[in-house]
């Protein structure tokens, strides 16, 4: 078993059993073979898709968008008005498709994103979602007990902060703009981006303290 297969077991410690692995390797290989033989898929294109989502598309894209919003009020305003358009003005971020909506955390409101019905997630800015985001515990609880989920994930908010949960039930996608940590005055955009975690852009975390 490879190391990656072992980590799969760890991730699913509460889920499907070990025999799924070998079964799925065989079944997926069979399906890919059939679809390739029929000319429906091109294995080289499949390789490229996997590579793209393993290396190119990830939360570093979202972090750059948030860092720019922290240092550039005009960009932040544009981002909150039309996140797709604003993100696509940043040449160094890979392209963002339609209907991205940025929501800003403030001392008054903390935003949390979930998809109770499936796994909707802003891939282009955060990459593919982690297993927990797609899991039954998160999907079931985020809407009925968001503060409990946040506490479990180590996020405690001031009593006066309201929580707003965004259930991604349509083709709109949500990116949380976390609050800029104190003590980062004068920091460069690049350095700030290092504080913007994936979870802070889902709302299940905060930006890192400097």
């Amino acid at each position: 078993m490879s190391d990656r297969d072992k980590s799969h077991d760890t991730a699913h410690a509460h889920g499907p059993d070990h025999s799924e692995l070998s079964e799925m390797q065989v079944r997926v290989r069979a399906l890919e073979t059939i679809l390739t033989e029929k000319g429906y898929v091109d294995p080289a294109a499949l390789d490229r898709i996997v590579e793209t989502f393993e290396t190119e598309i990830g939360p570093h894209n979202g972090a750059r968008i948030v860092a720019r919003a922290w240092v550039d009020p005009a960009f932040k305003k544009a981002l909150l008005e039309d996140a797709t358009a604003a993100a696509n003005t940043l040449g160094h971020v890979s392209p963002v498709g339609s209907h991205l909506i940025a929501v800003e955390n403030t001392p008054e409101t903390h935003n949390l994103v979930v998809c109770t019905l499936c796994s909707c997630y802003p891939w282009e800015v955060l990459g593919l979602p982690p297993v927990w985001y797609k899991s039954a515990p998160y999907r079931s609880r985020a809407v009925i007990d968001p503060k409990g989920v946040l506490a479990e994930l180590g996020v405690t908010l001031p009593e006066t902060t309201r929580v707003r949960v965004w259930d991604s039930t349509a083709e709109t996608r949500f990116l949380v703009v976390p609050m800029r940590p104190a003590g980062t005055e004068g920091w460069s955009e690049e350095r700030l981006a290092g504080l913007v975690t994936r979870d802070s852009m889902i709302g299940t975390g905060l930006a890192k303290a400097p």
Partner: protein
Amino acid sequence: MTNSIHDMGGMHGFGPVVVEENEPPFHAAWEGRVFALQRAMGFTGLWTIDAGRASLETLPPLDYLGSSYYRRWFLGLEKRLLQHGLVDAAELAAGHSARPGRRLNRTLGLADVERVKTRGHFERPAPRPARFKPGDRVRAKNINPPTHTRLPRYARGKLGTVEAVRGCHVFPDSAALGHGDNPQWLYTVVFANRELWGEAADPGVTVSIDAFEPYLDPA
């Protein structure tokens, strides 16, 4: 299906949220292949994203809950391929194609990968003006269609407020059935926590869904 196991919002008993540190995008090579196969076959345009979701929702509940995420995707893809006659059960069992493939309108080549990096565009020209505006009070309909819908159970029958109009979009309930785009206005509707979960709920929480106009009545 509408009232099936995928509609999890508000259920109890699934336990804590378990986070894996430094999680890779794919945990085994086959997961990446399933992801890529899904993208590639989606590119053929033979089915909509909504039909794809419906195929997962109609998995038997025990299969749905007992499968990892990408196994679910695989089972849904296999089901769609069989339904569309693109593969047959004997081929799946043998692991090889027994006959030449059909001619498809398009297939995904290496040069097309750039195009599946970004999401599709689901906004459509509006056939009529929006019925609601921000600030309007609305009640989510109590509907229980036996087919695909994106109105979660926990919001049905509940009173909310339109916060934003998001444009006119492909209506999933129609698109999943192959009935075309049937564009409908889309709204962000906010619900008070106590409206959703009762008097014991924390008043410091609100929950929004993005709801298509046919899901809403004026209130």
